[in-house]
């Protein structure tokens, strides 16, 4: 049996999905977290139920990517029971979508989520009455507390009933529906879709467009607008009947601080700055401890064990890789994700997007694109996936800019190499360089990218106190990816590297690139190998550097300038392989190739410039 969770963005669908299936998915407090339709199994009384988590949508007849994909899924895949999830504290707007879902005439169970918040706000909802109106069971839930979430699956199995509410449309629309149904034998919903030019039946669309034109001429409004108005009116009526606002409690108005230019913008800057600072400080503190432990308890014993040179080389590479992986990436990546999760769960991201809207226009995008950019600070891959909400032109620009955003793996390089061995101020200067390059690139792209620019329409997420448990879970979700995908890759390639190094192949390879690396970037020859490994995963540039240099204490083998140039080049140059892959999937090979070439040239160019400038002036 297949059950679909559907609803407005940010109502808690993914949280319910996670609680029911146990599959860890992205849950965060801004609209548009879930991008792909995802399904998972739930076992209940020996029956397997396939649960589907949809991206949040505002309507089933919209034209945006996520709306189109959900509509197609509903029409083409067989969903047995649909579970609309509504936000109790914003019922009226949520009912609008519910009325549309009801038009699909599927069996369903309605979940009203976030009743904890509506109760706090003094809103009383008559769930039984709603159940009467809509014709199916209504469950009042609060997913964050786990309240009644367990009832959903049993209810879909035993108590799913067909939703049977019909929105009364304006007479002309009703007349058009009647004639379409009569002539083409389609359903009421198909007729409504066809009037809005949606659907695949050419004949139906043809007659519908004639009718639609007439109606639009008569009313001077688009059919979609008329239908939307009728639905909103019906939703308002139902909301009115089933809700009573008991006492109007005033919430503390934090927005008067957060969304004003002052002090909102200083707060935004301080938040981002202190996030990076915290990552640097906590990260390097933990790192020192872990590296020290490895040195004392693993590396020293190995060196004094007197193994054969081959095995010593292999084991040494393995230990160094683990040391670099756990000891250096772990503290930075984990701390970073905890902080980012706190920021996301608090609902602050939408405020930041609002404040940045105008500034983002200068780089050819709008405020909503700030969210992928900030996500990019974590990892470029999900960030690039979430640009689907932007227009075509903005997506092209965003592909370039997001790949330039220093992700957590690159933070590892900046923090682990520059902050530790050169200085924290220098580490920040890399962010500054990248930031300036992003702005310049954006400026230029905004001028030359074809296509139309649209503005932002973004629902503000409610401000909430992040729940520590949930924050840790999310940070862990990202860490898991690191531990189970990156670490094995790292270990395998370190053994590989060890063998190659033992055989002298690496030396031969490096000899080819050495002259260039020496002359232009001023880097030791093994740096070229690390940079190549950096394409696999960014932090591996750093880790292999440690392996090839033969020590995690890079300060002892390279000068500050060399370390700085190495960090700048590996931060800028060519996105990692997964980013290239996701760029290819989302945007096509042309953009993927263009982005890779551009960043490659940028990295080499800036690295050369810094090196030559420093050499000639210092």
């Amino acid at each position: 049996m297949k059950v679909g969770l559907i609803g407005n963005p940010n109502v808690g669908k993914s949280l319910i999905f996670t609680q029911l299936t146990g599959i860890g998915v992205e849950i965060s407090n801004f609209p548009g977290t879930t991008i792909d339709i995802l399904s998972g199994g739930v076992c209940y009384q020996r029956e397997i139920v396939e649960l589907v988590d949809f991206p949040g949508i505002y309507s089933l007849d919209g034209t945006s990517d996520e709306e189109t994909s959900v509509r197609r899924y509903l029409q083409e895949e067989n969903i047995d029971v649909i579970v609309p999830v509504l936000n109790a504290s914003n019922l009226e707007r949520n009912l609008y979508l519910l009325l549309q879902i009801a038009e699909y005439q599927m069996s369903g169970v309605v979940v009203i989520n976030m009743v904890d918040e509506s109760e706090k706000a003094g809103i009383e909802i008559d769930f039984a009455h709603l159940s009467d109106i809509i014709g199916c069971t209504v469950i009042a839930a609060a997913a964050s507390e786990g309240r009644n979430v367990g009832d959903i699956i049993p209810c879909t199995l035993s108590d799913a009933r067909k939703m049977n509410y019909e929105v009364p449309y304006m007479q002309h629309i009703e007349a058009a529906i009647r004639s379409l149904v009569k002539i083409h034998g389609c359903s009421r919903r198909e007729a409504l879709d066809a009037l809005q030019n949606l659907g695949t039946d050419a004949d139906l669309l043809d007659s519908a467009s004639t009718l639609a034109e007439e109606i639009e001429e008569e009313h001077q409004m688009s059919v979609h607008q008329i239908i939307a108005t009728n639905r909103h009116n019906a939703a308002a009526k139902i909301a009115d009947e089933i809700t009573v606002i008991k006492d109007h409690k005033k919430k503390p108005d934090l927005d008067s601080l957060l969304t004003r230019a002052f002090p909102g913008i200083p707060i935004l800057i301080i938040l981002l700055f202190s996030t990076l600072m915290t990552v640097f400080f906590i990260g390097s503190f933990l790192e020192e401890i872990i590296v020290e432990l490895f040195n004392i308890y693993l590396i020293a014993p190995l060196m004094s064990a007197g193994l054969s040179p081959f095995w010593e080389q292999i084991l040494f590479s393995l230990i160094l890789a683990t040391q670099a992986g756990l000891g250096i990436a772990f503290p930075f990546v984990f701390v970073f994700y905890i902080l980012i999760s706190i920021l996301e769960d608090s609902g602050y991201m939408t405020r930041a997007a609002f404040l940045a809207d105008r500034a983002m226009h200068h780089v050819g995008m709008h405020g909503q694109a700030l969210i992928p950019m900030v996500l990019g600070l974590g990892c470029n891959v999900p960030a690039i996936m979430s640009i689907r909400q932007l227009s075509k032109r903005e997506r092209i620009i965003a592909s370039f800019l997001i790949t330039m955003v220093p992700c957590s793996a690159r933070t590892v390089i900046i923090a682990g190499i520059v902050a530790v061995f050169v200085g924290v101020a220098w580490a920040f200067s890399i962010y500054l360089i990248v930031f300036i390059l992003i702005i310049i690139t954006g400026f230029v792209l905004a001028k030359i990218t074809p296509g139309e620019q649209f503005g932002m329409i973004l629902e503000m997420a409610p401000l909430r106190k992040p729940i520590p448990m949930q924050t840790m879970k999310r940070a862990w979700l990202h860490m898991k990816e690191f531990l189970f995908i990156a670490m094995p890759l790292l270990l395998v390639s370190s053994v590989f590297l060890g063998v190659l190094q033992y055989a002298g192949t690496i030396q031969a390879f490096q000899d080819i690139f050495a002259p260039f690396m020496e002359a232009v970037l001023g880097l030791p020859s093994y740096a070229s190998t690390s940079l190549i490994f950096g394409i696999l995963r960014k932090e591996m540039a750093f880790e292999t550097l440690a392996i090839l240099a033969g020590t995690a204490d890079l300060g002892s083998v390279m000068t500050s300038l060399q370390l700085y140039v190495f960090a700048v080049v590996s931060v800028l140059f060519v996105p990692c392989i997964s980013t290239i892959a996701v760029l290819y999937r989302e945007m096509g090979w042309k953009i993927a190739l263009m982005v890779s070439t551009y960043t490659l040239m940028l990295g080499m160019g800036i690295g050369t410039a810094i090196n030559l400038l420093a050499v000639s002036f210092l």
Partner: protein
Amino acid sequence: MQTSVHEDYLEWILENRIESLEEDTLEFLSHKFNRNMDTVRNDLKHLENTGDITVGPGTAVRLTEQGQKTAKCILKKHKVLECFFTEMLGMDQNTASQQACRMEHEASDDTISRLNQYLSRPRRCKQACNRVCGPQCDLKSLSSYNEKETVCVALIRGPRRMGRLNDMGVIPGEEITIQRKLSNGSLVVTIKGSDIAISPEIAASVLVEPIE
């Protein structure tokens, strides 16, 4: 005296900017409303008693604040109805005016304001609109209002992507409150209980009118 006649007097005084009641004006009135001179005099007395007009010194006459309000309201109804009859139904001016004269007393304020909104859309009621609805037609974009103001959506211009706005509840007749406006024009508005951030260029395509 019926309310309709009562209202007609006030409307007439306002429309024709009557400042004094000479003998011939009274005659004209008796003819217009089809009542004899004495009744007209009585009627005017009655108007004075209800506090809608003040008479004197001499033949001078003036609408009181209350009278002015009633008169304006009726006059607006008359014009909106007349506009509808001539422009939308294609009736001739005279019949339209006569019909409007009868219906203006029965139509509720809500009916008239809805009708007016309907007429206010562009391409409708072209020249007549400016004459009849006056400032009502002068829709302004959402971006021309300030923080904490509540306005009523009249019309959404622009491309299909605006469908998102409709779905979020920006539909004609809906009230929206501006929560925040930055100096660069970005807005946060409350629509149907949720806060939505919109770019200046989107705000510019939403035409609204103030709520009286």
